[in-house]
């Protein structure tokens, strides 16, 4: 008989020193699963036999066991474990992590153990130690079950130890290999008619064979019942028969609800108060024979409290399941699955106040549950309650998985008066007291952010430190930080003699990545700005979690690092007001069916934000350069009149002076006076998000078209982003776009941004760069220095690698989208904050800032 060991368990080997535990462990478990007290005694003290190190070794062992159990990994403790005090600590640790404690006892003759120890140089303790341990062990044998071990295997004698085989048993709830598809059905409560109608709606054909139901699901699909099949409603017995027949035929899966649990107690003859609708079920079952009632008892008894399905992507439980309990086994897990978490209080209707676990849910798996009737099924942090109160006159609802479509049929009547009016139940839980505060544990100390794009993006601890300081000291309220703009890579370096960047390389890159059409957008030389604006203060306050009084401007303008763009609140208010009007008159609110919007834009002039850079760097460098070079020119001219050998220096100094003049003209173009809002211009180019939607599924044609209409509504403030569409395989089209760039940059424009026409384009597992900047020759003087165009300088500047920058741009782009999606999905602030934080942390990676 093999020894049954659950896959997720804490296994204690129990046996005297020398009983062969380590050999046993090595034979049946992987080395990483085994935590040996001897080994860790050695690790903490350099001496495996140093008994004074036992307490420290135990602490180390316990620490590691915690880490493993937290991750849901089977862990074996190889220590004598003959002392009940130590076993007690392990059992409580197993319970804390909701894994099953297992004891495997190696009960060998003390003489054999003593002999073994004698043959080992490092075990010089006397036989009395082994004899004492054996005595302790024998005395313990009878108590192991009561100590809390769920499986106890005693191997008596050396032969039994040698012959033992272990059979690892998957946990009952682990159905990850079952990928569905499923039609998950919420609380039925005896509403047989509605159930049949819903199954019909879902495409299930219900037939009969005598008393038996024979249900044919649509090809490949199965129903999945979330429990609470019975009580309150008109035909619980018929619902039971249908569900049991479907499960038996493999047409359905079922998990239990609290009402089944109570029914089972009644069926087992326990003294149960027939309240909460149980009486109706009892009455309906009285018409059935004993065999049917036995069948129900066996069926309910065999149900597993919750299931983890579809590769771990889906968890179903009647009352939901916290992340740390998913796939685990303990009384607590079962209780949570059936009843959820209650605070111990009751509300004004006498109903238990439930702890809103879904509001804090931060797991990866989708949790589908029922139990608490809600007016409509709504997603909250990847969880959804689909009990829409059919028995109370609501609807019976199914969720199709993996499609995530909701299918409902209305109740024929109110079968049972609810204690609390159905429409009174909030679907989206009220914000909790600690909402609105991000969590350090989500972002510090080497965390990763998992994105929905199949990429896990690590945050290096040192970068996290920099981001924390930046956010804590300078950023706006984290409730506003639902996105930050990602960095953008330039094109690869041009090999043309007088240029560093040229559109050719952008087009070549996109073609090489299988992109057929691109858009070239004018790059406005200003400062990046994110604008959040609501149709009115109340709308944006409600969506972003503020009190209206907290946000008098009804929105915000952010810099690319998440700071407030305008020091002067009046200017922000004025800009948002004008934008709000433009969104109104262009019909954009209706068009997007929203009352708030997040725009990605460039705000001009550059001098509005960059004044201190201009004062300390750009302007004085030009002044100093002109001053010293023009004085040098005068002197060189005078000297040339009387000295030989200066012509080369004279010519070069002339070139340098010209370059310096050009540099000054370059930055002066991006400066003009503003007075309040007068002179400020905003050029939006992405409609990032609005209510219920991240617009990353829309191509740039859509974004620009929406924004053109907005811009045209207020041409004084708003600027259209000019663009050219390029067919990358049409030479004429490419040449036209290139000509446009030349014209723009010769006029002194910064350049253009080349993007695939789709918002996101994948090539296999890699993201195609969503945007490449192609900057003009004159503009680049601001980046590479006034004299960069001198041939000897340009030649050296060509050696620049864009690889790191592109990898960074990819990661930041995905993080930016991830945070937006999380926000739109109404996930809690901490979940939205983590990708934003990671994005900012990436900004402190060492990448050439001139790229």
């Amino acid at each position, binding site marked *: 008989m093999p020894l049954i060991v659950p896959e997720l368990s804490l296994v204690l080997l129990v046996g005297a020193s020398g009983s062969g535990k380590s050999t046993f462990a090595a034979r049946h478990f992987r080395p990483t699963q085994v935590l040996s007290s001897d080994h860790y005694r050695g690790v903490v003290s350099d001496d495996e036999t140093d008994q004074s190190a036992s307490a420290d070794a135990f602490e180390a062992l316990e620490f590691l066991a915690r880490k493993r159990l937290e991750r849901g990994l089977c862990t074996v403790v190889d220590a004598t474990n003959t002392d009940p005090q130590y076993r007690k600590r392990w059992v409580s640790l197993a319970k804390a992590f909701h894994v099953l404690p297992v004891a495997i006892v190696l009960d060998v003759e003390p003489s054999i153990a003593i002999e073994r120890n004698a043959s080992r140089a490092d075990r010089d303790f006397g036989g009395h130690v082994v004899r004492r341990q054996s005595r302790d062990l024998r005395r313990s044998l009878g108590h192991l079950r009561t100590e809390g071990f769920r499986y106890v295997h005693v191997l008596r004698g050396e032969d039994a130890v040698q012959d033992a085989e272990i059979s690892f048993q998957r946990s009952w709830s682990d159905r990850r290999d079952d990928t569905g598809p499923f039609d998950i059905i919420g609380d039925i409560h005896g509403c047989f008619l509605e159930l049949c109608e819903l199954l019909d709606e879902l495409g299930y054909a219900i037939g009969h064979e005598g008393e038996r139901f024979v249900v044919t699901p649509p090809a490949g699909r199965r129903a999945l019942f979330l429990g609470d099949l019975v009580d309150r409603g008109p035909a619980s017995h018929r619902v039971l028969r249908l569900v049991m027949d479907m499960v038996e035929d493999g047409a359905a899966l079922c998990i239990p609800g609290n009402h089944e649990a109570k029914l089972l107690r009644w069926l087992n003859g326990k003294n149960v108060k027939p309240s909460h609708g149980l009486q109706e079920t009892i009455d309906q079952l009285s018409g059935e024979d004993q065999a049917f009632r036995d069948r129900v008892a066996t069926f309910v008894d065999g149900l597993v409290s919750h299931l983890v399905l579809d590769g771990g992507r889906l968890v179903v439980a009647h009352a939901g399941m916290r992340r740390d309990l998913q796939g685990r086994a303990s009384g607590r897990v079962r209780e949570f699955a059936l009843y959820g978490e209650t605070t111990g209080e009751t509300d004004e209707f006498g109903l238990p106040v439930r702890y809103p676990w879904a509001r804090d849910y931060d797991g990866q798996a989708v949790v589908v549950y029922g139990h608490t009737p809600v007016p409509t099924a709504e997603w909250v942090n990847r969880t959804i309650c689909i009990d829409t109160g059919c028995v109370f006159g609501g609807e019976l609802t199914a969720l199709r998985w993996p499609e995530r479509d909701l299918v409902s049929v209305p109740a024929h009547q109110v079968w049972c008066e609810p204690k609390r009016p159905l429409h009174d139940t909030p679907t989206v839980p009220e914000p909790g007291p600690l909402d609105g505060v991000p969590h*350090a544990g989500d972002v510090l100390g080497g965390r990763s952010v998992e994105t929905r794009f199949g990429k896990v993006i690590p945050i290096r601890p040192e970068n996290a430190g920099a981001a924390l300081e930046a956010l*804590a000291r300078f950023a706006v309220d984290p409730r506003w930080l639902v996105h930050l703009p990602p960095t953008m890579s330039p094109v690869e370096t041009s090999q043309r003699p007088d240029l560093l960047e040229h559109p050719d390389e952008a087009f070549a890159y996109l073609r090489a990545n299988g992109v057929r059409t691109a858009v070239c957008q004018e790059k406005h030389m200003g400062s990046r700005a994110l604008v959040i604006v609501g149709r009115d203060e109340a709308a944006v306050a409600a969506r972003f979690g503020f009190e209206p009084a907290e946000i008098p401007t009804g929105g915000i303008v952010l810099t690319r690092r998440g700071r407030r763009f305008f020091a002067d609140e009046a200017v922000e208010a004025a800009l948002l007001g004008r934008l709000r009007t433009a969104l109104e008159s262009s019909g954009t609110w209706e068009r997007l069916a929203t009352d708030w919007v997040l725009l990605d834009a460039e705000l001009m002039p550059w001098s509005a934000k960059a004044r201190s850079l201009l*004062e300390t760097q750009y302007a004085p460098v030009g*002044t100093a350069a002109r001053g010293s070079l023009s004085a040098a020119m005068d002197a060189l001219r005078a000297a040339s009149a009387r000295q030989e050998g200066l012509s080369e220096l004279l010519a070069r100094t002339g070139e340098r002076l010209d370059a310096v003049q050009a540099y000054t003209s370059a930055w002066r173009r991006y400066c003009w006076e503003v007075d309040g809002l007068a002179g400020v211009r905003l050029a939006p180019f992405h409609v990032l998000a609005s209510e219920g939607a991240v617009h990353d599924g829309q191509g740039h044609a859509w974004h620009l078209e929406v924004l053109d209409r907005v811009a045209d509504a207020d041409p004084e403030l708003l600027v259209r982003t000019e663009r050219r569409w390029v067919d990358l395989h049409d030479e004429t089209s490419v040449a036209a776009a290139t000509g446009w760039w030349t014209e723009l940059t010769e006029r002194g424009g910064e350049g253009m941004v080349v993007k695939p026409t789709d918002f996101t384009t994948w090539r296999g597992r890699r993201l195609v760069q969503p945007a490449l900047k192609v900057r003009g020759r004159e503009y680049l003087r601001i980046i590479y220095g006034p004299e960069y165009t001198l041939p000897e*300088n340009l030649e050296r500047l060509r050696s620049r690698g864009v690889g790191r920058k592109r990898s960074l741009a990819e990661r930041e782009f995905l993080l930016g989208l991830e945070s937006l999606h999380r926000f739109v999905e109404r996930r809690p602030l901490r979940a939205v904050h983590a990708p934003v934080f990671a994005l900012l942390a990436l900004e402190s990676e*060492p990448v050439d800032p001139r790229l």
Partner: protein
Amino acid sequence: MFLTLTTTRAPATDLGWLLHKHPDHVRSVSLTFGRAHVFWPEAGEDRATVAMLVEVDPIGLVRGRHAADDGPLAAYVNDRPYVTSSFLSVALGQVFRSAVKGDCQRPELLGEPWPLRVELHVVRAKGGEGLIGRLFEPLGYEVDAVRLPRDEVVELGESALYRVTLSATTTVSLLLRHLLVLLPVLDDEKHYWVGQDEVDKLLDRGEGWLASHPEQQLVTERYLKHRRSLARAALERLAEGTEAEEEADEAADAPSTPERALEKPLKLNDVRMARVVELLRQPGVARVVDLGCGEGKLLRRLAGLSQLTEVVGVDASSRALEVAERRLERTPGREKVRLLTGSVTYRDDRLDGFDAAAAVEVIEHLEPHGVRAFTQAVLGGARPRLLVVTTPNAEYNVRFPDLPAGAFRHADHRFEWTRAQFAAWATDAAERWGYDVSFEDVGEVDPEVGAPTQLAVFRCR
């Protein structure tokens, strides 16, 4: 960068002898950072001008430097190739090495004071026009400095750039030595690492004039790139035996902030710390967390308390934590102290369950939303049994003679509260999160405006 040197002593072409540069020839010299060119725009009997143009390689300046280095050399757009700086000083020293040393094939010219005029095209003077005068006038120069605007077209105000003409009757060798020392001092951004031999160089070039220069201290400090130990050594040698006083360790580490300077007469910080420590030292308090510990002033006091078994300091600034780490090195009780990177505006379960916490002069550095987050994260999340919060009393600011009306005590303060404002916040926070709160004055109480610091003690109900 560019300068000219003119003399009107006849025959003026004798300048070529002193400089070892023939007035009819152009000379070019390679330097590690570029090239220097010497030429003569005029070389007549009555008047001769020698010019030096230094071409600094702008790409070479940036390439190969560490990315984290954000000094003036890190950017391609920088003034180094154009303003008089240590680059020019190095070039002068190399190109006119013999002239500086005072070698000449016609030794009779050497000791002779000549009328000389130096034109420095674009000097960046950290310290302004006044400093140019204070540096050169005591040496007998007539100084003419014209300040340049930041830009001639865009209205951006005045720059720190000057066109400077220095005139004096002096020897060429001495004038060169003055420039070698004082040009980098004006600019105050030396481009190279400064070590012990720089002290020797300074004393050598300063021989005969620096010891009596009224700005000797500033010259020494800037020339030695503010390395205090070097500057002290140099000043000692200049003073020839008079002992410079040892400065306290702490003062040497950090330049005092305006806040500290303001409050110094009161020694307010010490009073505040002492009171906070006293409040934290209550029976049953064994584990304490210092929220926003900064450079660890409170931590050092707490580490020594035997009743404490664990002291945690948390701060968002990794630089501050590094300093704290260093300062704690020799503190008794160091092993009890843990430093954590974190922010008081983030919910942080590492800070849960402490007996006591302190936030000394922290909240005024937070934006209003940060104060809200602090309240939630600390009183709502970490929930220490005891919390001590201190913050400036804004009403008291009128008692600081040097503080302009309406200004804050520190540049990073986002607000300073009156007693009523502080009480309103604390009472509301305590009510919301189940604490009792009481208030105290810290520092001498002024009958009209109260004490300089206000303090609240929160006790978990």
